[in-house]
């Protein structure tokens, strides 16, 4: 772990009408002068935008192009931003549909990890009041799945549309071995049992609908949830596992990530 230092973070939002102040979070930006770090992470899919703004969102391909522009602008600004005030000035220049919030302070020990955590908390499906797993399940998955032995066998950030519901979801990873396996990291750490079960139920329904309908290439698809639970959620895990299994969703505990990786290495093509 690095020595802790003060950094700044911003939320990147899609806000089609600033008068209405309605916005969907698309990404996060982290700046740590002590670590010489400035990076943004943006969502690959646009399911939040579609859910909030429906047809008002317009051409999503254009939105993706604008997201790329923003990402590249952040990369190009690496040399020019050395202080939080310079970051504030940079953020203020984005005054159209894509906006960057004013910087807020955060504690930075490992900027890459903190960027992933921020993305998970502020852009992913997590409820704001939930504490963060340490390390978060998404980070544990990233460390294993982006290792060299899985290169070429696994794809990252794969978006699919859930049949019937019509919502786009983004799988963190996907691999093919006769069927398309969509892998999502989920932290079931909500403080209320009902919230954990609600999240599990939504995931189960999405998974069931995906399982029932082959892809446009005619191959089957299945959702695999890699899940983490809070330390005191002992009795909840079997319930969540059973609910997912009954809806054709595979559950993989955090402790079985390595076994899943071996399965991918041996069977994916």
């Amino acid at each position, binding site marked *: 772990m690095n020595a*802790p230092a003060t950094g700044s973070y911003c939320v990147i939002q899609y806000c089609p009408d600033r008068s209405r102040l309605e916005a969907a979070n698309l990404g996060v930006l982290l700046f740590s002068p002590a670590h010489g770090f400035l990076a943004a992470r943006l969502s690959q899919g646009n399911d939040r935008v579609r859910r909030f703004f429906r047809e008002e969102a317009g051409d999503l391909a254009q939105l993706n192009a604008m997201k790329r522009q923003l990402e590249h602008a952040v990369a190009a600004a690496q040399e020019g931003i050395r202080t939080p005030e310079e970051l504030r000035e940079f953020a203020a220049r984005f005054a159209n549909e894509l906006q960057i919030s004013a910087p*807020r*302070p955060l504690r930075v020990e490992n900027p890459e990890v903190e960027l992933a955590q921020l993305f998970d908390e502020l852009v992913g499906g997590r409820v704001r*009041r939930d*504490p963060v797993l340490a390390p978060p399940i998404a980070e544990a998955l990233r460390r294993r799945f982006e290792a060299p032995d899985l290169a070429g066998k696994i794809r990252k950030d794969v978006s699919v549309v859930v049949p019937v519901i019509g919502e786009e979801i983004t799988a963190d990873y996907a691999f093919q071995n006769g069927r398309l396996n969509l892998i999502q990291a989920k932290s079931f750490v909500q403080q209320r049992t009902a919230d954990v079960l609600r999240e599990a139920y939504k995931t189960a329904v999405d998974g069931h609908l995906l399982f029932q309908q082959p892809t446009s290439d005619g191959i089957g698809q299945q959702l695999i949830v890699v899940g983490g639970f809070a330390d005191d959620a002992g009795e909840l895990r079997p319930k969540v596992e059973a609910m997912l299994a009954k809806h054709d969703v595979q559950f993989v505990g955090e402790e079985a990530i390595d076994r899943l990786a071996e399965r991918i290495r041996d069977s994916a093509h």
Partner: protein
Amino acid sequence: MVAPLTPGWQPTKIRRVVQCLDTGSDAVEVMTDAGPAFAKFLGNREGPHVLACEFVGTELAALLGLPVFDHALLPYDGVPEIALASGRRAEPGPAWITRREEGIRWSSQEDDLRDLDNPADIALLVLLDLWTLNCDRYRPEPPPPRSNPSNVFLSREGAPEGKLRLVAMDHTHILTCGRELTSRLDTIDRVQDNRRHGLFPGFVKAVTWDRALAARARLEAVDPAKVREIVAAIPREWSVESPVRSSLERFLEQRRNWLLQAFPGLVFDQPELFASSSTP
């Protein structure tokens, strides 16, 4: 130290700032390693003694059996650096921190108390404010009354469906109404202050004679040694010197004894109507 302040909830670091609030004590909404919370730091515009008041008031509320937010002392190491709403800097040292709960402040309307799951606690909250001379919920005098229903919090947590739970919050202005604590806390005029602190007009009907008697029984059950432990546990970094602590201990004890005689009559216009009966 009275430790742990809330069993099972002890954040150890502030991960990030959510927003700085323009309040008297420069409260900051933060995300900690134990989830979302509100923090009050050394360096706030009102000085370290409001932190001591918050500590004492919240611990006394819990001692009486009132619902309070999960709370803790967080050893703030100065990272991340935080510019408070007043423009001052949060200073390293023990910070007061409470877990964020979902809910809403009370509207100040009597009818809205029907949503409460724990209406009997209203009498207990009034008694807490009387005990601690809390001016920051309701103080009738000097006119005009000082009324702050924002400090009556109605939480969604722990309440059955459709109900809200009254929570005692924000005690930064007990004892001296935000001024420095001194060794003259236990003067007779303060011990026998008969103003009806805490008794919002909207609370009057909810504070029935029976509920008031039940609240007094809670005060009577308080162990004076526990109160002394609370005062002794105020972090030394908050600059409450020994003579001030002694005066605070004496005040809380003498004020409690006085209230055990004066309450509930103090909050009823015609206590003689109830004194011989257990119901109004």
